[in-house]
């Protein structure tokens, strides 16, 4: 993990409720924690002029969508972001999807699910239930964009995502 990611993650608040959307009331408590942590994360990003994603969820907090963007050589590339909260959350991390990039990179599974590094899963498992959506964005999507966007730009396949 690079130092930047490490220091960002250390500033995110930790969650306490172990609940999935199947656990009605406990899920509401968990969802409040998730939203609070995300709000804090976005605020932190904005303060540091490093804002890089926007997400919102449906009423039950089970489906999320938004945008993420990455600057490379002074150009902003922006993509749709979506994910679902799995039945066995938080034991299983959410699988983050960039559907528009499906077929453009091999570091991706069907439906545009990003291919996480081998370090992500062990780290997530060690931190159940303390890590939430904010952590998964910081630890898996952030590093993924940093590694893949330069390659995608280099291959000239994401010109249409310039903003």
């Amino acid at each position, binding site marked *: 993990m690079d130092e930047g990611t490490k220091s960002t993650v250390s500033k995110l608040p930790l969650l306490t409720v172990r609940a999935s959307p199947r656990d009605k009331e406990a899920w509401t408590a968990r969802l409040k924690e998730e939203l609070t942590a995300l709000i804090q994360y976005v605020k932190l990003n904005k303060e540091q002029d490093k804002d890089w994603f926007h997400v*919102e969820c449906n009423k039950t907090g089970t489906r999320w969508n938004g945008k993420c963007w990455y600057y490379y050589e002074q150009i902003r590339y922006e993509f749709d972001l979506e994910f679902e909260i799995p039945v066995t959350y938080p*034991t299983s991390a959410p699988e983050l999807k960039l559907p528009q990039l499906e077929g453009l990179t091999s570091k991706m599974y069907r439906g545009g699910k990003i291919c996480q590094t081998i370090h992500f899963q062990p780290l997530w498992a060690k931190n159940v239930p*303390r890590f939430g959506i904010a952590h998964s964005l910081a630890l898996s999507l952030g590093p993924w964009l940093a590694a893949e966007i330069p390659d995608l730009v280099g291959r000239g396949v994401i010109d249409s995502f310039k903003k």
Partner: protein
Amino acid sequence: MDSFLADADALLTKASLSPDQKIRIRHALHNLPVPTPAPIPTARNGPAAPAMSSEVVSDNPYSRLMALKRMGIVSNYERIRSLTVAVVGVGGVGSVAAEMLTRCGIGKLILFDYDKVELANMNRLFFRPEQSGLSKVSAATQTLRNINPDVVFDAHNYDITSLDNFDHFLNLLSTGGLADSPVDLVLSCVDNFAARNTINAACNELSQTWIESGVSEDAVSGHIQLIVPGRLACFSCAPPLVVASDIDEKTLKREGVCAASLPTTMGIVAGMLIQATLKRLLGFGHVSDYLGYSAMKDFFPTMTLKPNPACDDSWCVKRQAEERERMAKEEARRKLHKEEEMHPDNEWGISVVDDAAGDPPVAAKSKQAAVAKGLEYAYEERTVEEADEDERVKDTGADLEDLMSQLKGL
């Protein structure tokens, strides 16, 4: 020309055409003979299939299987016609496993997968290029029904990890058997952690026996693991147990790829999986609780993992309590039985003692060093410590809707 074909294939995969149209175009592109659709026999409802004949004639598909009876390997092979197996994940392992069960004359197969067949799957067995674009479950059902129309197929094209599908999945496992009974066995042939967790959660809740299977991302090792809720470690009891790779992670090149795969390793793991399935369901031989395969060393480590009393899955803990109760009752019954049976003039008090077979079981998570030679946990044990007070999310008093609109407005 090759890149033209690849482009055309990619376009075709995205095109909004019927699977049948896609197959025809793809065949024309690749200069393959356009297939004449094989007549697909209609599925039977319920166990109305003909009885298995043991007659040794060239047109009896079951003669070599029924020979297992004559040779004294299996006492009642026909029983397989009454059994239902759910195969979750119909990829490199699951499709081959399903074909093996189909050829063995299984009563019913329930298949789950949300993926489509792609040309990138052709390095593995079972699927054919002309099936690309079809959902894996419908392509599989098509092929399998042609191989053995006696089998009842029930195919489901959805993602089991999604909340919308989970109740349906649970319901099918508990009532999908031939007599609306629970399925006889669940086989996990999935390729990701979330799907394994989902199967584990469902099977703990239903007290359903299942076998987990897996092939490493570098394609040179694999394993199968029998999970009987409460009796053997579940998937949440400890970090996943895998075959030690002995390959330095630093020298393994991962640039530009997610995972490698080989038809050999996948075929071997599917074979191990269905061998264990047949042995368990038809009651012959010994079924290892965990069986690994290292392609690099031609090594097959085995071991037994006992459940973790502090497992995160509350259903697993419940199943463990039930198992302890069952064991206590069994022990009491055996004692009583022994006292009655004991020969009255057995003055030396000689009795037959159970001969524990195999290696001593290891309690999951007891000590990492305790795993059998050649095996290791996929990652170190987790520490379930609570976050310090000042590191936790602070309750701002805002309700859910407030928070949602706050986030949205940022």
